[in-house]
């Protein structure tokens, strides 16, 4: 199943063209996306470092959950809105970007990691609320830190055209980016 026809249709809509060609809106959306990193990833990093027992060891995990998680959620919503708008402005090139694809895969992995954490080890938080989190929790924190770092790097790399379909590419890249004969 290819989403290319959908992306091509999206690229032809007037909103997508307007955003893509706008002098200020696109840079503003882009800047919002980048600066919201401070809120979302910044708070996530604090959360993960707390799970590793490195910072704020005196703050209970349930307190982190009540007080920091809402901030992460707000950050995530803002990042998602600006991220969707960025994709909307440049759908076809993004869809055929190996960096964008890597980013989406890592986003899904980060989501699964967080979901698994909450479904399993976090259920027993009462027993380690103020102490050192169990090994599974620390493993989830390391996975989260690595994934978000990867997501940031892959996201930044989307801007570069090294692996674009309109340049000569190795077969693996052509396959991974889903390039077609027309580009």
């Amino acid at each position, binding site marked *: 199943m290819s989403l290319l026809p959908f992306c091509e249709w999206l690229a032809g809509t007037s909103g997508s063209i307007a955003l893509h060609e706008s002098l200020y809106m696109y*840079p503003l959306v*882009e800047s919002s996306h980048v600066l919201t990193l401070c809120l979302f*990833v*910044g708070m996530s990093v*604090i959360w993960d*470092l707390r799970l590793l027992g490195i910072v704020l060891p005196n703050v209970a995990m349930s307190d982190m959950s009540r*007080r*920091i998680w809402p901030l992460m959620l707000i950050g995530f919503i803002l990042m998602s809105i600006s991220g969707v708008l960025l994709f909307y402005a440049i759908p076809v090139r993004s869809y055929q970007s190996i960096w964008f694809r890597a980013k989406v895969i890592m986003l899904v992995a980060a989501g699964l990691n967080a979901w698994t954490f909450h479904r399993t080890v976090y259920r027993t938080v009462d027993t380690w609320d103020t102490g050192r989190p169990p090994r599974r929790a620390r493993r989830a924190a390391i996975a989260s830190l690595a994934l978000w770092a990867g997501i940031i*790097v892959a996201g*930044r790399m989307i801007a570069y055209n090294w692996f674009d379909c309109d340049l000569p590419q190795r077969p693996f890249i052509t396959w991974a980016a889903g390039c077609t004969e027309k580009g």
Partner: protein
Amino acid sequence: MAALDVFQAIEASGVSTAIRESPWAFAVIESIHLLALSLMGGAVLLVDLRILGIGLTARPVRELAGETERWMTTALVVLIVTGIGLFLSEAVKCFYSTPFWVKMTTLSLATIFTYTLRRGVVRKTGTDVGTTTRLVAVVSMALWFTVGAAGRWIGFSG
């Protein structure tokens, strides 16, 4: 020697040329710059938002500030080192860029403010937060926001 000559000499230097001519260097340095930005943002926001009553409000401000200061400082050092790398590769463009000068000005102000006034105030603040402390938090966030926004805008201009 005029300022522009200095910037031209920087751009002609070996390190500068090496970064510019490498297909990957700028992108890699930029990515590290962004990773450090996230950490710096988290460390600053945790304390400033707490002062304004958002986040870990049950904890004393000095505890949060003390716990996160080394992370903030590490991130700031990484940001400055990678920032110098980015600047070296396009010094002349920076010379003509208004956002670059806005960023350098607010960066100096924000750094001095953070390590003098803000540090002094947060170290003295427990769970009770006064108006001066709130003002310090607002100024801190406004300054760092301007640094970040102007920084992003260097890439859009010129």
